[in-house]
Each structure stands twice: as structure tokens, then as C-alpha cells.
């Protein structure tokens, strides 16, 4: 029975079956890290006549999903100073962080059996907990098992939550920072992401140096630059020195140029030069993704020496699973895995056991290619070499997993107009602001379209039949331009060559024209059948042709406006609305021209 909400209101009986009322509250000892449950309070009757019983936990004999069976009830005053009444003091209260910043509300409390006792483990602040309390237990369980974080449990461990004044009604909870600092760096990063800019900097200043570097590493890239900008230069440059050079380079790359230059000057010469070299590479290539903290050894070492060497340098290297063998000029001549090293006799030279056929990537290879190599050969890391086959760094698989997912998400996002988050799944939350903005854009586009119809209303009065074609027009221009967009994004996005691009565009656009012509003819004949008169049919057919062919151009222009920093889904949505408006204008202009001409 893990939740307080499930215990509340349960029947309490003695072994003889005497009803003692229902469970009203659970008492826990305050002060302990995970406080043990000391007893329960039962209530019989309502209002002023209510009788309350205090039942120490040792008297609880057994309990199941329906009732508690207790040996006896003790009716006594509960001392509130040393105890917390979970339902009264904690449940439904606001959690406030150390700055008095409202964060969330306690929706449930999780209690678990630990060491023969029941202990309060955590407070639940998520949506799922709200659903559970409202009685949608099954729905809540289903959502909880889902992988999405939004719907998953949002739980704060009890040791991070301490009631300021127990027993006061205005009790507030806080996350004291001493305990906060004991958190794992990635947890601290999660919390920092939730705060506003000033508080982020404040929290960063509380975290000690080596850990702060870890925290900075775990913060989401877009938040990270704002955190970095809010921090002092001295402190930040110290942190960058501690970090692995590739991560330092990533952070520097996300900062404004002047700030990055200042930081580089403040860093130690050795560290700065490693970072500087990495900064020279395009961040989306092997050079940009690689780390220089790999283990390399000369061919002359014996296996035993290598293992000893690994003991020394293993701490700083990104991975010690692969040891790269280089010659005196740094050329990569082989690789030996930790497994091979451990299995080989310590006396032999590494050159005898190493794998000579090393899969490598080059410095300016695209990150997608790097990811493909890693997955094709099932590697944990792939060495990066320059034109002379000199070993420059390695890319580990965890650095490109994000790449693979990120790129797919971006492509899907661009095509579907749905905002995909970096994890590669669509943003589902009803509260997602981009969803609202998207809907609003579409809505306003619709209003604009309606207004356009108003301008051309004389034509409609003349031949209302023209309006028949508008749904076809709007739907088909969307589809056709999405096709073109898909082709443009996938084909043209990959080529740099101008002439080839033009040829591709020409080919695609001729398809669009053919489709537009076919649709125009089709609509013309359909119009003849519907209206049994030539003018509206001709107007509709020509209008459709114009609308589709003109809005088709937009699809090709779209990827060139693509700005990697902007939200691809948002621009796609805008594109959809733009297509609708442009096609409608072309349709209406051509229609009115045809009708007026006759």
C-alpha cells in the first residue's frame, strides 16, 4: 500500500470486529531522514461529535486493501511538536523552495515498508497523483507506466522536503540546500532547468567546483548558455578547465563570441589550446563531436605495461574500453580492447594482439555518418583521424545517440508541423505553449481567409458555385505542398551544389504543374456536372490550377528560409497557413478574372 491517499478513509476494526471508524491521518516522527510511521488516527462520527482514536503502529496487526485490524485503540492526546500528521500538515500543501519561490503542491505521499517499518519515502507532486486522488486509479497507473516524463510520477524524496513549522496550519515545505547539494549532478541540473535565470546563477554559486562542472554538463543546451552567461567569468573559466575539452568546447560554442574569447583567455594555456582546437571544427561533424581524452599508447608497450598505464590515466579518459595504438608520428596503427588486454598474456607486445583494421571517421565527416559507423560496426567509440591518418580524437556512442534522435526529430518536425521535442517524440502536453500558438496561427489564418472571401463576395453572388471548389483547393494545396516540402527537405537538404539543386527543383516543380493541370481539368469537368454551366466550371478549374501551381512554389522556398535555431515546427505551421492564403488569393483572383471576363 504505497500511497497515503489509498490509506485515508479505510475502515479500522479491532480483532473482535468492533468498528473504530475510518482512518483520518497517519502520524510520522519528524526529524528522521525517512520518518517511520508511528501510528494512525481514526475518526468515528462527524463534526463536533467526532471521536478520535490514536492507534500506535505496534498495535496494527494486519491490513489489506479494505481494512486495518488493530489490537486496541489508545485514546490520548497526540503531541504535535514531535510528530507530523501527514494528511493535515503535508498533503495538499505548497512546496516552496529556499527562495520562497512557489513550485508545486503535494498531491500524494508515498509510504513504503523498509526495515520492518513503514517509512515515508517521498511526496508526489505530479498530475498522475492528482488523477489517483480523484479516483481515476486505473488511468493513473496506466499513465505512470508510460515512459513520458510529463505523465510519469513526479516525486521528491522525503529527505529533500522538510516542514518548517510542523503542526502549524501555514506550514510550508522547503528544499534545504545542504541536502540539495547532496543530489546527483543530473538531478541538480533538472531542478536548475525549472528555475528562473537569477535563481539558476544563485544555485550554481552554491555548488562546489568539480560538481558544478558536472551539473553544467547535464543542463539542457539551450538553458546552459543562459546559466553560463549569468555566471561570473572567473568561475566559469575554472569550470571549463575542469571539464573534458569537448564539453567545454560545446559550452563555449553556445555562448556569444566575445564572452567565449574572454573565457578562453582566462583558462590555462594547455586546456585552452585543446578547447581551441576543438572549437575550430564544425559542431555537427566528427571533429566537433569528438573528445581528445582518449587513451593512446606506442606500439612498443607490452600488455602488462598498458594495463598499468590504464590504471594511471583511466580516471580522466572518456573511455578506457578501447586503447589506441599509434606510431611515433601519431598515425593510428591499431586498436586493442580492454577485453583483449585482459585475456592476453601480460608479457607480449600490444602490436601482436591489436586489431589492425581500425574503422575510422575523418574530422569533417558529418555526425550522421559517424552515428552510422558506430551502429553498423557495433562500436562504443570510433577514432577520428585527419587526412594523414593521424589520430585526433574519438567520438563515443553516447555523444551521437542524441544526434541520431535529434536529427530524426527535426526532420519529422519539419514535415509534420508537429512540435517534436529533442527526445524525438511529439510534445503531447495540453499545456504546451507551442501547440497553442500553432492553433492560434491556424485560426488567425482561417479568419484572414474568410476575410478574403468577403472581399471577393461579388463573384460569389454571381456564381455561388465557385465556393464548391474551396475545400478541394485548400486540402489539395496542403497535401501537394507537403509532398514537395518533403522532397525538398530530404533531397535538397543534402546537396550543396547549386546546379543540382536547380535541376531537382525544376523536376519537382514540373510534377507540381502536371498535378495542378490534372486537377484543374478534373475540377472543370466536375464543375460542369455540378453546375451544368460553363463559366463557374471554367473559373473553378483555372482557379484550382493557379492556386495549386502558385502555392507549389512556396514549398521550395521554404527549406531555404529554414533557420536551424528557430523552431522547425512553428515555421512549418506558418508555412501551412501561408500556403492556404496564397492558394486562396490566386484562386480567387483567377476566378474573378474569368467570371468578370465572360
Amino acid at each position, binding site marked *: 500500500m504505497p500511497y497515503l491517499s489509498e490509506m485515508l478513509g479505510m475502515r479500522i476494526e479491532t480483532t473482535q470486529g468492533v468498528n473504530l471508524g475510518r482512518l483520518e491521518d497517519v502520524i510520522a516522527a519528524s526529524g528522521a531522514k525517512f520518518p517511520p510511521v508511528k501510528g494512525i488516527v481514526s475518526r468515528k462520527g462527524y463534526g463536533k461529535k467526532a471521536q478520535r482514536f490514536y492507534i500506535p503502529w505496534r498495535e496494527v496487526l494486519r491490513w489489506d486493501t479494505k481494512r486495518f485490524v488493530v489490537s486496541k485503540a489508545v485514546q490520548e492526546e497526540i503531541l504535535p511538536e514531535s510528530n507530523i500528521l501527514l494528511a493535515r500538515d503535508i498533503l495538499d500543501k505548497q512546496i516552496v523552495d529556499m527562495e520562497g519561490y512557489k513550485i508545486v503542491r503535494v498531491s500524494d505521499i508515498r509510504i513504503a515498508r523498509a526495515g520492518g517499518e513503514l517509512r515515508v519515502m517521498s511526496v508526489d507532486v505530479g498530475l498522475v497523483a492528482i488523477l489517483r486522488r480523484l479516483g481515476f486509479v486505473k488511468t493513473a497507473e496506466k499513465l505512470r507506466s508510460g515512459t513520458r516524463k510529463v505523465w510519469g510520477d513526479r516525486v521528491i524524496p522525503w529527505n529533500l522536503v522538510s516542514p518548517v513549522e510542523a503542526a502549524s496550519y501555514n506550514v510550508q515545505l522547503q528544499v534545504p540546500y545542504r541536502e540539495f547539494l547532496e543530489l546527483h549532478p543530473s538531478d541538480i541540473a533538472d531542478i536548475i532547468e525549472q528555475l528562473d535565470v537569477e535563481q539558476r546563477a544563485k544555485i550554481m554559486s552554491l555548488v562546489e567546483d568539480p560538481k558544478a562542472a558536472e551539473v553544467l554538463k547535464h543542463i539542457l543546451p539551450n538553458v546552459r548558455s543562459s546559466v553560463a552567461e549569468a555566471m561570473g567569468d572567473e568561475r566559469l573559466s575554472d569550470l571549463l578547465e575542469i571539464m573534458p575539452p569537448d564539453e567545454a568546447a560545446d559550452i563555449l560554442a553556445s555562448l556569444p563570441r566575445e564572452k567565449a574569447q574572454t573565457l578562453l583567455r582566462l583558462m590555462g594555456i594547455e586546456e585552452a589550446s585543446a578547447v581551441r582546437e576543438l572549437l575550430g571544427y564544425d559542431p555537427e561533424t566528427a571533429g566537433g563531436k569528438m573528445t581528445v581524452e582518449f587513451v593512446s599508447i606506442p606500439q612498443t608497450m607490452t600488455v602488462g605495461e598498458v594495463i598499468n598505464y590504464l590504471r594511471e590515466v583511466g580516471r580522466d579518459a572518456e573511455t578506457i574500453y578501447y586503447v589506441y595504438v599509434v606510431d611515433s608520428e601519431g598515425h593510428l596503427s591499431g586498436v586493442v580492447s580492454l577485453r583483449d588486454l585482459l585475456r592476453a598474456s601480460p608479457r607480449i607486445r600490444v602490436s601482436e594482439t591489436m586489431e589492425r583494421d581500425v574503422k575510422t571517421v575523418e574530422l569533417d565527416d558529418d555526425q550522421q555518418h559517424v552515428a552510422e559507423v558506430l551502429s553498423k560496426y557495433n562500436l562504443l567509440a570510433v577514432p577520428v583521424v585527419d587526412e594523414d591518418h593521424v589520430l585526433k580524437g574519438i567520438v563515443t556512442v553516447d555523444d551521437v545517440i542524441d544526434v541520431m534522435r535529434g536529427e530524426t526529430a527535426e526532420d519529422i518536425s519539419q514535415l509534420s508541423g508537429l512540435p517534436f521535442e529533442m527526445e524525438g517524440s511529439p510534445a503531447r502536453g495540453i499545456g*504546451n505553449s507551442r501547440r497553442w500558438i500553432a492553433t492560434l496561427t491556424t485560426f488567425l489564418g482561417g479568419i484572414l481567409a474568410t476575410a478574403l472571401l468577403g472581399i471577393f463576395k461579388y463573384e460569389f453572388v454571381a456564381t455561388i458555385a465557385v465556393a464548391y471548389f474551396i475545400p478541394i483547393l485548400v486540402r489539395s494545396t496542403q497535401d501537394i505542398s507537403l509532398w514537395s516540402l518533403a522532397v525538398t527537405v530530404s533531397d535538397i537538404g543534402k546537396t550543396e551544389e547549386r546546379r543540382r539543386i536547380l535541376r531537382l527543383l525544376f523536376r519537382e516543380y514540373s510534377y507540381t504543374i502536371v498535378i495542378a493541370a490534372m486537377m484543374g481539368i478534373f475540377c472543370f469537368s466536375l464543375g460542369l456536372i455540378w453546375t451544368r454551366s460553363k463559366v463557374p466550371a471554367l473559373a473553378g478549374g483555372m482557379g484550382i490550377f493557379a492556386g495549386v501551381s502558385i502555392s507549389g512554389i512556396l514549398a521550395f522556398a521554404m527549406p531555404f528560409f529554414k533557420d536551424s535555431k528557430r523552431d522547425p515546427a512553428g515555421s512549418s505551421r506558418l508555412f501551412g497557413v501561408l500556403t492556404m492564403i496564397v492558394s486562396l488569393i490566386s484562386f480567387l483572383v483567377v476566378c474573378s478574372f474569368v467570371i468578370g471576363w465572360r
Partner: protein
Amino acid sequence: MIVNRERKFSGEILLYLAIAGPGVITALAGNGASGITTCSVAGARFGLSLTWVLVVSTFALIIFQEMSARMGAVTGKGLAALIRERFGLRAAFFAMIVLLVANISNTISEFAGIAASLDIFGVGIWKYLAVPAITILIWEIVTRGSFRWVEKFFMALCLIQLCYIVSGFLSRPDWGRVAISLVKPEFKVDSSFVYTAIAIVGTTVAPWMQFFVQGNVVDKGTGIGDYKYQKVDVISGIISANLISLFIIICCAFTIFPRSITTAEQAARALGPLAGQSASVLFALGLFGASMLSASVIPISTSYAVCEALGWESGIGKKYSEAPIFFGIFAFSLVTSTLVVLIPGISLVRVQLLAQELNGILLPIILVYMLSIVNDRRIMGEHVNGNCINIVAWAMAFGIIILSFTLFFVGLKGS
């Protein structure tokens, strides 16, 4: 000594001005499109016979809003938060669902007021552009503006309502009769008379105003020490708002009466030939300002209340990604209202009636919650209600509950 006293006095005035604002804005925002409609209908149909109802509901509103403001000052928490903490999640959730639905209907009727006033100004078919543009304007001002700026915007909208006082004077009222009607209750055994009387109470004491005034007091950070100034502000706000309602009744009573109208728009149009074009324009302008004010205030106060009760991040100053549900509710209310109002040929009178019925369901619940909280010593400490105010408040609440149910069932039968 005298110098000192004067200085202290002017200091107190400054302090009052610093705290002033929320009360006036809340009270005037309560005079939204539905309030103006009700008052114009009351004046046009029944002349001055219903002004005493306005006096009684002013009194009730003062009592309830003073309680809300006091709760805010003592606890530093909003009403929704107190309901959740005192009555638990289910009660709060239920109240918030009803509040959300009621307030969306309220917002729709405010947008209907905006659209109607635009119609009077001859916007015509362009309302399909103008109403969405106003929606965006409201969104931008409320979410992007600083608190001071937003308050100035609201204040400006409040000042527009002075139009009603001018159009009231333009109707050349007989002040003697007005004065008598205020203190001499009149009854008529007529279902539409009773219905209009109930509607006046319902639009004056709207449930969302309790949330809004308390939220404002909390936001201003007025402690219980400065509470007396807050109290003055709340009361003066209510009185000035209901004074404006009175002028609407007066204006309609001395011009349109006795004629049967159903909307504020009809009242504005009818005023033209009777009291001059300027009176008509001023009336429409007032309707526009009042609807704008309520249309901005109601959705944002809904967002605040819901997020506060369910423990979600809220605040205008946050980024969209930091408080998605907060901005989501705000945007949803605005967009839904815009869409509904723009549906061609929709009966907005029906929407307004729906809004009033939902308010009628919600108000008793909120009043009972409020009275239990304000009398809980664990929450309010020494600032619980006195016996005298409790008797009056419970009597008022009981009366309003009966009226609300009557309204609800009359409306149910009518539909």
C-alpha cells in the same frame, strides 16, 4: 505638532494610493457586459423599481469581498489555495472545474459585449478581423506587460466606464424619484421582474470576483498591518462600480422605459432617438470598455485560481515553457470565446444566460467554502469573522443561495 500631523496624513494618503487599484479594478471588472446588460434591461423594463436590489447587493458584495481581502492579507494565499488546503483535492478540483466552465462562459459573454459594441460603431463584417485583433491585444498586454503597465491599462478601461455617468446625466433624470427608489423597495408578482432582480444580484456578486480580489491582495503583498487601507480600497471600489450600475439603470429608466429589450446593444441603439446620438455612443463606448476589462481579467484570474489549486506553476512573469498550463488556460479561454462569438448567427443572449446559471451554481459553493475558511481559527488566527458580521454574512449567503437556485431552475425551465 500640526506639521507632523499633516505629514502623517499625506503619508497615509500616499499609502492608500499605493495600495489602491485592485479593489476598483475588481469591482469595475465585475460590471462586465453581463452586468451592463442586466442593468439596462432592468431600467428599460421596470424603470427605477429595481434600484433597491442594487443597494442590497452592493451591501452583500462589500461583506464578501472584505472577507476575501482579509483572507488574502492574513494568509498570503489565494482563495483556491485555501480551498485545497482546507477541503482537500476533490473539493478544490470540483470547484475549479465549475469555475473554469463558468468563467469561460463569462468570458464568452464579455466577448459578445465587445462584438456588440463594435457592431454599434458600424464595424460590420470587419469584426472577423477586429475581434481576433482584440484577442491578441489582450493576450499581449496581459502576458507581456509589466504589472504596473497592466494595471494602468486596466485603469484606463475603468475610466471609460465614466461614460455611463455622462449618459446618465444626458437622460435628464428626476433625482428626487431616484433617491426615493433607492430606499423604498418595490415588489411585483411577475416572473420576469423576479428574474431580473435575481440577475442583478447574480451579476453583482460574481464568484470569480472573490478569487480575483483575494489574488490581487496577495500579489500586492499587503500584510494584515496595512489591511485597513486595503479595506477602504475594496469598499470604495465596490461603491463606485455599483454607482455606475445605478447610472445605467437611471439612464435607461428615464429614456427607454417602459419598453422590453433583452441586450445592452438594443439599449444603446434605443438611446439614440431618445437622448441624442452622443448618449448612444457613450453607452456603447462604456460597454466596450467594460467588456474589454472583464474579458482581460476573467481569463487570467481563472488561470491563477486553477493553477494555484492544483499546484501548477503560475505567474504572468514566467516564460510559456515554465508555466504552460497557466498560459494554456488563459489562451484557451480567450480563443474559445473569440471563436464562439464569431460563429455567425449565434444567440449570445443564450450564452449570457448560461454564464449566469453557472455562476449561480458556483456562487453558493464558494460562499460556503469562504465562510468556513474565514471562521477557521487555525487559518485566520484572531482575524476570524466577528459574530455580528457572521450572522449578516450567513443570512446574505443563505439568501443568495436561494436566489441562485431559483435562477438556476427558472433558467432550466426556460431552456
